[in-house]
């Protein structure tokens, strides 16, 4: 089994095919989208492939150490950031092909006009622990 992170971006991903902001959808289209996402997560739980899913607020800041005895420096909110993560799902699957298959399904979630969003999702493998058998 291998873990993959499916990353959804507020900004930074290539534009999706059906690129309409959600507040321009109809309420029914929003409901259909939510239901699709919920069903997707439920299905992965049943197949034993779901690990975690979280959403992030769009606001945040950069923070770094600024030397002994000083408070950390902060820079934000993220106005200048090109890449902004909206949330993630972590899946534990048999391999890369399955991870891509699932990301494809997630990207097919319906949006404006009830048509798939075709949103670009980032698929990133976890670096795992070293195997027991090495030779």
């Amino acid at each position, binding site marked *: 089994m291998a873990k993959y992170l499916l990353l959804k971006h507020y900004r930074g991903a290539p534009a999706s095919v059906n690129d309409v902001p959600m*507040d321009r959808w109809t309420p029914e289209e*929003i409901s259909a989208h939510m239901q699709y996402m*919920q069903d997707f997560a439920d299905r992965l739980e049943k197949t034993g492939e779901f690990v975690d899913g979280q959403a992030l*607020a769009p606001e945040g800041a950069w923070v770094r150490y600024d030397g002994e005895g000083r408070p950390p420096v902060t820079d934000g909110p993220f106005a200048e950031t090109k890449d902004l993560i909206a949330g993630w799902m972590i899946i534990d699957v048999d391999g890369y092909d399955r991870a891509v298959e699932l990301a494809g399904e997630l990207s097919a979630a319906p949006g404006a006009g009830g048509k798939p969003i075709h949103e670009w999702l980032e698929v990133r493998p976890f670096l795992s622990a070293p195997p027991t058998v090495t030779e």
Partner: protein
Amino acid sequence: MNEALLRSLTPSVLGVLVRRGADFAAAEDAVQDALVEAVRVWPGERPRDPKGWLVTVAWRRFLDATRAEAARRRREDLVHEEPTPGPVPAVDDTLQLYFLCAHPSLTPSSAVALTLRAVGGLTTRQIARAYLVPEATMAQRISRAKRTVSGVPFDQPGDVATVLRVLYLVFNEGYSGDVDLAAEAIRITRRLAVAIDHPEVAGLLALMLLHHARRATRTAPDGSLVPLAEQDRDRWDKGAIAEGVGILQGALARDRLGEFQAQAAIAALHADAPTAGETDWVQIVEWYDELVGLTDSPVVRLNRAVAVGEADGPRAGLNELASLSDTLPRRTAVAAYLHERDGDLPKAARLYAEAAHKAPTLAERDHLTRQAARINADLRN
């Protein structure tokens, strides 16, 4: 129900051990062990004196642990200092435990965790699940909290206000899985109300009951939020409302108003309205005035602006908003609502979308996005 009985006995059993001279941290561990043992043994035969049984088992566990510790340190003298087990004293130390678990030296998250375990009798695993953190993390949080309060004298009187803040935090966390924290908070607050006669304790209990009564109607089957005005009032829990109102009236009659009583009074006025349209907004605004006087919190002022918008019209509500900071959470959502009621739909839609962007929870974000979508769809047609 064994589990409910066990949990209700937890604080007084713990109090007995501490009064006999056990230090709080070790006693708390011993009581948890005894609870686990009871869950294993009681289904076969529940003892005639459950509390006495728990005290005996917990005390034995405490002695075993103390001996093991003493042996480990090769300090045999510790054993000789053990007080001998005596009869269970009549005095109930439940109240002292509430004070200790909400001690001002604890951070809010530590106080919440310790209260749920030592007063509420929940297991570390249940608390961890309720707060969605790993069990090991919660175990560490609880043992650090116990170390923090280890030097606090057990019989030192505490501040009821700190206890109420902790219980309010537990209640507000709501429901996130296995453990119903709102119901748990009500149970613990109910016991506090028995242990101490205090109008604000009654006020908080009334507030919890009145909000809990509406819970089933606050979310739709698909998980989306249902605003107060659209809730199915026939499905509100009338028994909980009647109890909450009764408790509140008893508290208010004592003429020592506090913020929880005032909040409960507002909740009671909502509960009292047969339909949203019949809500007594004028009286609600008066209670918000009392609350502003008691707390002067910007959150209260924001809620007051909503009430003013209902009592005196959306323009009046928007006037109230003008003096509140843009950075105040949910201010944009309130502005969107008031502009919609004022008939400025394009502005309302834009503000709803902006409020969704700033929303602190997923449910609110979805709700606000739907509001924007609803108005935009109407504007297109």
